[in-house]
C-alpha cells in the first residue's frame, strides 16, 4: 500500500511514501492510481477528476474546495485546494 483513502467517499488519498510522477500507486481502501506529479510523503493525491468548486473530501468530511481542474493522480495542496472557513462573506 502506497497511499491510504480514509473513507469510501473520499476523493483524495494520503501518501504513505513519497511518489515520483508516472509511478503506479496502490491505494489502501481504493483502486490504484498513477501519480501525475512528484508528491512528497504525507501529501495528498487526487483519486478522481475534480472541477473548480468541487468539494474535496478526506476522513469522509469536507476539507476545502478545488480552485482548478484536478486530474486523477495529481498532487492536491494549497495550489489547487482552498479552505471554506474563515472567509469573508
Amino acid at each position: 500500500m502506497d497511499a491510504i483513502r480514509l473513507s469510501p467517499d473520499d476523493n483524495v488519498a494520503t501518501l504513505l511514501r513519497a511518489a515520483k510522477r508516472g509511478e503506479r500507486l496502490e491505494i489502501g481502501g481504493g483502486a490504484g492510481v498513477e501519480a501525475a506529479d512528484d508528491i512528497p510523503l504525507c501529501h495528498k493525491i487526487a483519486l478522481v477528476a475534480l472541477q473548480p468548486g468541487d468539494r474535496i473530501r478526506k476522513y469522509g468530511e469536507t476539507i476545502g474546495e478545488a480552485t482548478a481542474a484536478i486530474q486523477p493522480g495529481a498532487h492536491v495542496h494549497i495550489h489547487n485546494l482552498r479552505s471554506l472557513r474563515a472567509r469573508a462573506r
Partner: protein
Amino acid sequence: MSRNEPDFQGYRRADGSVGVRNHMLVLSVGGLTIPTARRIAASIKGAAIVGFPYNAGSLLGDDRATWRRAMFALALHPNVGAVLLIGDNPPLTAEVAAHVKRAGRPHAALTLDDCGHDAVTLTERGMRASARLAMQISSDRRAPAPLSALTLGLECGRSDPSSGLVSNPLLGRMADRMVDAGGRAIIGETVEWLGAEHLLEKRAATPEIATAIHEAVRRREETAIRNGLDLTGNNPGPTNIAAGLSSIEEKALGNIAKSGSRPIQGVLAYGEAAPRPGCWVMDAPAYASESLTGFAAAHAQLMLFTTGVGNSFVSALSPTLKVSANPETCARVGEQLDLDASRVFLGTEAPEAAADRLWRRLIEVADGAATWGEVLGEGDEVVARFGPAM
C-alpha cells in the same frame, strides 16, 4: 512487575491534589523580577521557574481575570512541592502567598520592595529561602494514588498528516482510557475545531454544551474574518503546509481525534480547571506554549503532545510525552520523542499495541521516569494575552 493496578505513585498534597513531580518552583509574580527568578532557579538544583512578564494588577478585562487565575493556579500546581514567590507588586505577591498558605503548600514570598529595591539582595534572600524549601521537600515521598486524581492535557504541534492519521487517534485512546479510569482529559486549540466542530457537538453531553462548542468556534472564526486573516498560512502555518496539510478543516479533523470518543462534559475557559471527571474542551489559543500553560493552569499533571515534523517545546511544570508517527521524523529527532509510532503509520504495528506502549510509558512517567523534554530542559510556561493593557 505487571502494571495492571489502576494506580500510580504520586505526591499527595495537603489540598487533596496529587502531583507526579515535586518541583521547587520559583514563581515571578511580575515582569521586573523574572531575571532574578532565573538567577535563583539556576542556583538551586532542579528548580523550576515560571515568570509572569506583565503586571497582572494593570491588565484589563479578560486578561486580568485570566492572569490572576493562571497565577494562583500555577502557584498551587499539583506538581509543585514548594514555591518561592518573588515580585515587584507587594499587595499582589501577598495575595498569592495567602492563597498558597491556605492550601498548606510550603512557600516563601519576597518582593523587591522588601529588599531596598535591590535585585542582588533579592537574589541572595531568594536563594537562601529556595534552598531551605528544597531541603524541606526533599523528604517528601511518593505514595499510591488513583488514576482518577489525574488530568491529562492533549496537545499537537508542528503537525503533519501523520498526526491526524495515527498520532492524534493514539492520544484519543489515551483520553478514553483516562476518562474510563475516572480521570480528566482536556483538548484546547479552538481554531483547530473549525470544520470538525459538528463531530465535537455530536459528542456533547447536553445540548447546551453543543451550543457552547459551536459558539466558541464561531467567535474564533469571526475574529479571523474581522482581522482580515487568511487562516491558510496562519493555521495551518508554513511548517504544517510544507508537511502536507492544506486547510484548517483538514488539520482540525486530525486534531480532534486527540479527544477520543467519550462524551464532552463542557467548554472550559482558558486555564479553568475541569470541575468533574471526563473529557473536556478548553476554548484557548492554538500555539503550543500558550495552550500547554492553559492545561497546566487547569492542573493537568501530565501532557501528551503529538508532532508531525518535530516540536521540542514542553510544559515546565507537567511532564510532556512527545509522540510522532512520521517515519522521517522518528529517525531524525529520536531524542525528543517519548513514543515512536512510525510502525503504525507503516502498517507493521496495530494501533492498540502502540496505545498499550504509550499508556505504560505514561504511567512510568507519572511514577517518576523522565521525559525527553525534562532531560533536555525544553520546558516553559506562557500565559495567553487577549486584549489591551494600561
